[in-house]
């Protein structure tokens, strides 16, 4: 082989090998799916190719070719150099592979969690002791009721996460760092709970030096344990939720959903005799929850999106009065409980039990509201126009991702703004809470809260403060505030009055409570499967100017709002009014 060709091959082999290795390393550095171990196939192919190319390079570099008549000794040296080149390439590949395993894919390997076909959990055994030694902070409701805490087990000094309140603890989410990670407050406030949020660098250094466990901070919730327990018991085993908000502050006092998970079942017990069995128990429970048709992982109060039905008329009426499109006493015509708003066959109809008997065709807006007449609101919606409805829904909080520390869905008026702008039928249906409008129970409670608060949408919150575990001093506090002004005070007063009228003389009259001001609106939302979700939103309080409690109750496919959601809301409000 002539010299220049030889040199060219050498250089190309070297560059090719380096290129392959670089590609393999860079490819390994790209993060893959979370918790999945890195795949080695591309890397091993690169390494194999690089092996051949490096071998060619080293082989050609190690020794010039010996002539035919070279001495035995010269040939021997030539051969040994080539053997040496072979071993050298072997050591170089070891180095590269170590570089990959210990640096490039190290994080992916440490995080990897594989659940085998037999249900065995494969993950770094260092993870469990590390995580288990962290003394996570507690989650406290009502000032002294612990709903999640870490119990230290002697002598291993491992912590066992316990969730002692069956009706409240699920609000904490769950904590299972080894297999499923964490969810809910356990996830959103993890940096405080785990103590990874370094508040004092000096004590942190001291702790590390002495190999002391991390102690997390406690978080305090606005939930009233008595009210939450009561609401949960009243809800019973009905799919749905009860949300009670302090309308004046935005504090969430009760947030009951059913079905829900039992976070204790997902908590790893380090005291278990066999950790593998314990892991398997958790995997089995989780698989059961995931395959449950009732979907207990869905926190209905904040994640459940449903058509709000007639409760949404509160939003439509507010928009109409605030924009001046209508007054509470504006008159609408509902001759026979049917109306057509657009060319075609589609009729908007009142519900069969809604229209009072022996009443003429003329209804005021207030009457339309208290008797929940769809025809009135269909006409009002068309009169109002899509843009104004969109604007007021937004002001009431539709489309907002409230940051309360729980997984949450934003409610929405329609699949797109354009849809309600274009289709009159859709606009009319949306105006009485059908069509494409989707709301969470929390969102509807906030509609009632905004009305009760004087037209301001309060920022909802559930975590009131984070306190240092040792000193009890707050290290973080929520400042209650309003998100935005929704309605002018005058409009708000009118809407509040309409809601009160609805309870005094309308279909929501069973919600009246002795000695308190109560306003409300029922809802019976068609699901499209011949069933309907049962809704009630409302407020109650002793001070007529500032009713304190806003509520939303919702039972999935529960039937009529007046029969199911309303009585539930009434007993919960009565209980809330007993609070000090």
């Amino acid at each position, binding site marked *: 082989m002539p010299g220049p060709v030889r040199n060219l091959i050498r250089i190309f082999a070297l560059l090719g090998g380096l290129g392959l290795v670089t590609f393999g390393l860079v490819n390994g550095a790209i993060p893959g799916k979370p918790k999945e171990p890195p795949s080695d196939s591309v890397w091993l192919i690169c390494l194999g190719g690089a092996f051949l190319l490096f071998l060619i390079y080293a082989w050609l570099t190690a020794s010039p070719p010996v002539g035919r008549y070279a001495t035995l000794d010269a040939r*021997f040296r030539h051969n*040994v150099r080539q053997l040496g080149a072979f071993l050298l390439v072997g*050591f170089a590949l070891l180095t590269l592979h170590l570089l990959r395993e210990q640096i490039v894919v190290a994080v992916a390997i440490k995080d990897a969690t594989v659940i085998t076909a037999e249900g065995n959990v494969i993950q770094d055994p260092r993870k469990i002791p590390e995580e288990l030694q962290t003394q996570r902070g507690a989650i406290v409701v009502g000032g002294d009721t612990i709903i999640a805490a870490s119990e230290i087990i002697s002598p291993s000094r491992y912590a066992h996460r316990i969730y002692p309140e069956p009706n409240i603890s699920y609000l904490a989410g769950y904590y299972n760092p080894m297999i499923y990670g964490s969810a809910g407050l356990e996830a959103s406030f993890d940096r405080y709970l785990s103590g990874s949020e370094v508040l004092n660098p000096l004590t942190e250094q001291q702790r590390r030096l002495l190999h002391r466990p991390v102690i997390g901070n406690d978080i305090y919730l606005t939930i009233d344990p008595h009210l939450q327990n009561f609401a949960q018991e009243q809800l019973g085993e009905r799919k749905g939720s009860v949300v009670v908000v302090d309308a004046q502050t935005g504090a969430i006092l009760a947030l009951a959903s059913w079905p829900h998970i039992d976070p204790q079942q997902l908590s790893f017990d380090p005291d278990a005799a066999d950790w593998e069995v314990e892991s398997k128990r958790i995997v089995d429970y989780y698989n059961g929850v995931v395959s449950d048709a009732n979907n207990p992982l869905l926190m209905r109060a904040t994640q459940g999106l449903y058509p709000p039905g007639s409760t949404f008329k509160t939003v439509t009426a507010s928009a109409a009065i605030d924009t001046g499109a209508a007054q509470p006493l504006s008159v609408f015509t509902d001759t026979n409980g049917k109306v057509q708003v657009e060319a075609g066959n589609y009729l908007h109809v009142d519900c069969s039990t809604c229209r009072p008997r022996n009443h003429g065709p003329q209804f005021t807006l207030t009457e339309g509201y208290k008797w929940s007449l769809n025809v009135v609101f269909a006409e009002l919606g068309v009169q109002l126009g899509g843009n104004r409805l969109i604007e007021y829904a937004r002001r009431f909080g539709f489309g907002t991702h409230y940051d309360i520390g729980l997984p949450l869905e934003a409610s929405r008026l329609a699949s797109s703004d354009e849809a309600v702008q274009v289709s009159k039928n859709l606009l009319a249906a949306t105006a009485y809470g059908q069509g494409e409008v989707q709301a969470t129970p929390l969102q509807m409670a906030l509609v009632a809260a905004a009305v009760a608060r004087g037209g301001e949408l309060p920022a909802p919150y559930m975590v009131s403060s984070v306190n240092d575990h040792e000193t009890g001093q707050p290290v973080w506090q929520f400042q209650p505030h309003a998100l935005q002004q929704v309605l002018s005070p005058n409009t708000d007063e009118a809407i509040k009055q309409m809601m009160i009228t609805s309870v005094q003389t309308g279909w929501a009259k069973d919600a009246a409570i002795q000695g308190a001001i109560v306003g409300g609106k029922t809802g019976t939302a068609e699901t499209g499967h011949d069933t309907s979700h049962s809704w009630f939103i409302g407020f109650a309080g002793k001070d007529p100017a500032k009713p304190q409690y806003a509520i939303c109750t919702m039972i999935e496919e529960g039937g009529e709002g007046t029969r199911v959601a309303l009585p539930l809301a009434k007993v919960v409000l009565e209980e809330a009014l007993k609070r000090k």
Partner: protein
Amino acid sequence: MSVASPPTTHTPPAPGMPAVQPGSSRAGRFWGTVRSLRWTEFRLLIIPALLSIVGMLMVILVPTGAMQWQWKDLWMSFVFLGLIFGLHLFLNFAKPRADQVLLPITATIMVLGLVMIQRLEPALVSKSDDFEGIARKQVLWIVVGMVAMWATVALVRDLNWLRRYKYTFAILGIGLVAATLVFGTDAGSGSGVKLWFNFGFFLFQPSELLKVLLVIFLAGYLDDKRELLASPYRVGPIKLPPIPYIAPLLVLWALALVLFVVQRDLGSALLFFGIFLAMLYVASGRLFFVVGGLALFFAAAYTLSAFFASQFTHIAKRVNIWLDPWPVGHADGFQIVQSLFALASGGVLGVGIGFGSSSIIPAVQTDMIISAIGEELGLAGTLGVVALFMVLVYRGYHIAFASRSGYEQLLAVGLTTILGLQAIIIIGGAIKMIPLTGITLPFISYGGSSLITNCVIIGLLLRVSAPRPVRTDTERLGSP
């Protein structure tokens, strides 16, 4: 690799020493003697000496399990110090011109292993009492190994003696394999692979000795037939080695195959075959022999796979685990997955001696010790080990270049290749670069057979690097 530097490093005169011509006077002779002492070796030995003390101190100070080391357990470090400096002293007097880097490199690799075993013992004892006293036993093996190294240097006065009895060694080797097939026991690994002789106190692994016997035989045989091998027959387009002369080689080749197929000792088979091909190539310079040998091997293995199906599913399983150990990470892939976790948690500088948890890896004290090093000393530790083996191989080949006879050259190349290849095979297996095969990491893994045999290899290399001195004054004092 360059050949420009001389094989043995001569100590340059230390600064401030009188520049006296050797042999001119009594004082001059004295300074000449001082200068010819093995100062390079002495200075290099400070590193393993410090490592053994510092390492043991760390092991004592960091609690790693139920059992705790006491201050008095530092005796192990001092025994080690005594051994390496004792051997150093011996070499100063007996073989002053022997290679000065081999002993320090070997001692450094050895002390890394000893510290890791001292650190692992308490953690392993918390799992099973079987591991009680492995650190003390390792010290014992180091003592025996060092004595064996000394004995090899001191007693093998004439390397031609090894050459003369090469067939005896070969038959001894074959006998060992045969005996293992009959009397071999499974040393509690549970794998059902019977590779050991149980002598009660001591489990002897014949494959360790076998690799040295193989090299001793091959060096003699190939040197005798070197010219014949280099000028092959031409049969049509194919050049074949002279048939009668390759018969013994074919026997050895078959031996490797037997180990591979019947014994399921994949690591040793790979090592033997590697050494065999490497020496064949060095002696003949024909790549064709290497490729042909490999092709024949695989062809034969393929044919045999019909008869030894269970053995071959075993091999297929190993390969599958190598490609993706995760789905079987709780069973067959447990070892390699845990090794990956250990390596990953090490990072660049490691978690520190005593702060890792690699005692969970099966066979961590033997085959998988590089993973424990990777966790506690990090990439710095693992690359350090790789670098040490590279220097060892480099020195070994230089010894081969510098030696005078063809036999010694081949012997040195073969012995060095054992250490280099064995390190690559087991480190590569433990870090999932190649399929994992169970062999020891020379000088680091716990175990007597491996440690003593490898010490003998170093002894032979030292012996090759120090030709029998022709005792003239100028030679003794080092020629310029």
